[in-house]
């Protein structure tokens, strides 16, 4: 949360600083001549959204600091057990590597909308501090809402992580942070999955609506982001941190928030590319969601 706040502050500072900083007169040979412009039909980030974001930040902070409720929810349905048996890696070391990989991927995905899309692409490459600021604020709002939803549900659900059944065994001693921290009861739903998918969905929303690269690289960036989010979710199951229902719910919530907030507040007001469509349908292994602009 602090990270996003600082990023937004830095963006605002750097935009004003650069305006009064004539010492670097860099040529713009690598950049398009025509700067990106925020379409007035989208509307600007407003006071209501600041209220939503502030409330979401407070809820997310409170629910993440609070100890999860003691619900004694540790049972897993056959579907979760089946997926766990299939994907869970065999050794603690291997599972630890999967967790590490998921930490790296969620970190890259969470920073991508701010650092790459807003600052490097919209601000530097396309020359628009205004678009970069609008994007960053929308990103901060959507991610805050996703974190608030995830924090509230994990606090209320208090579901034990899959590995908890192994605590106190030779493989996983009881005196470890895994088995002692309150985080062991934050299985439902997956924060890594929801954060990855909300970030990937924000990347898609902005690239597809604003044509940040103005080429097929926009669609490619969106596809890669969604693929990385899916991989992050799978790694959480491989690392025995979550059940399948945890990551699927996280993915669904993240996707809905990541596409929904930019659309509801901004992009639905201009539908030059047609309305947004979201379809959810069952598949062999669960559910799938397809969205389009």
């Amino acid at each position, binding site marked *: 949360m*602090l*990270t996003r706040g*600082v*990023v937004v502050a*830095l963006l605002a*500072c*750097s935009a004003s*600083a*650069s305006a009064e*900083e004539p*010492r*670097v007169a*860099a*040529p*713009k*040979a*690598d950049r398009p001549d025509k700067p990106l412009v925020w379409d007035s039909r989208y509307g600007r980030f407003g006071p209501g959204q600041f209220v939503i974001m502030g409330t979401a930040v407070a809820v997310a902070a409170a629910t993440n600091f609070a100890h999860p409720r003691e619900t004694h929810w540790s049972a897993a349905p056959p579907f979760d057990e089946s997926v766990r048996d299939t994907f869970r890696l065999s050794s*603690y*070391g291997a599972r*630890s*590597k999967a967790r*590490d990989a998921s*930490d*790296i991927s*969620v*970190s*890259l995905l*969470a*920073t*991508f909308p701010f*650092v*790459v899309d807003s*600052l*490097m692409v919209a*601000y*530097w490459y396309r020359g628009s501090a205004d678009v970069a600021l609008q994007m960053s604020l929308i990103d901060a709002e959507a991610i805050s809402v996703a974190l608030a939803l995830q924090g509230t549900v994990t606090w209320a659900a208090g579901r034990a992580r899959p590995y908890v059944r192994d605590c106190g065994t030779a493989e*996983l*001693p009881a*005196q*470890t*942070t*895994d088995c*002692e921290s309150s985080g062991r009861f934050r299985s439902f739903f997956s924060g890594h999955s929801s954060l990855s998918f909300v970030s990937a969905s924000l990347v898609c929303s902005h690239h597809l609506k604003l044509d940040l690269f103005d080429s097929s690289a926009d669609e490619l960036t969106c596809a890669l982001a969604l693929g990385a989010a899916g991989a992050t979710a799978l790694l959480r199951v491989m690392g025995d941190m979550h059940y399948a229902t945890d990551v699927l719910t996280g993915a669904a919530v993240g996707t809905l928030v990541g596409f929904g907030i930019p659309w509801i507040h901004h992009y639905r007001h201009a539908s030059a590319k047609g309305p947004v469509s979201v379809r959810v349908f069952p598949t062999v292994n669960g559910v799938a969601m397809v969205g389009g602009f």
Partner: protein
Amino acid sequence: MARRVAALLAVAGLAITVPARAQEVGGADNALLAGRKSDAWEHGETRAFVGVNTEVGAPYLRPRAIFGWGKPYYRFIGVDLSAMANATSAAGYGGVRFVIPHVALRVGGRVVTSFQRTFFEPKDSYGALDLAGTAGDKARYVTLESELAAAVPVGPGSLLALFSAFELERVQGDQRVYEETLRVVAARRWLLRARLGWVATLGREGNATAGVVAEVLDVPGRPALVVRAGIVATFAINAHLEALLTIVPAITGPDTIGIAGGDISQIGLRYRWATGP
């Protein structure tokens, strides 16, 4: 204390083997800044200044204040005060920094408090489970540090060199501790690091760099030798703000602690600012 600082300075001094030529390229305040064609600080006036150099990423925050004299981040001498916070630890640092074009030297001390990790009993190898252990006192220790960074233009980029000498304090007997800055399981007293690499300057505007680095960490007290290699990249967004990417995982070494054993900052942002013209 004075003798220790003098010893650290001596180690750093011995490591100054890289020629420090004055060039048109920006100062080597940090080896990662190498190769940038236009660094606004170079054209400022020599003066007393207060600077801010803050890094933020997911999930870490590293604010730093500099009270110096010279051209900020290019050629100066100053006092560094910084803090670091991430999900597992917090630290405070104070020291002095000398910067001339292409070379930077810092000497200082750091207090580190771990929120999760404890001191470890000695053994040959440590795994992820050891780092997750809670039996024992939470780690709290002090490091006396000296570090020399150099960036010398070579071809269409720069040769990077980084030499670090840390002395570990407040660690009892033969206890081990996970050292949060160098990211290695350490023992008293010395930790030594040597990093070499090369980064290319990219783009016609010269505001991006990307390259490879390799480093060796020596922990004589264990003993242990760790080799890391990976990629580093920077992208200057404007005169004050730049994006950073550092992914330097451990390649060989006695431990299997995963991401905790590498220098992995992922995507971060660095904001630099200073008073004066």
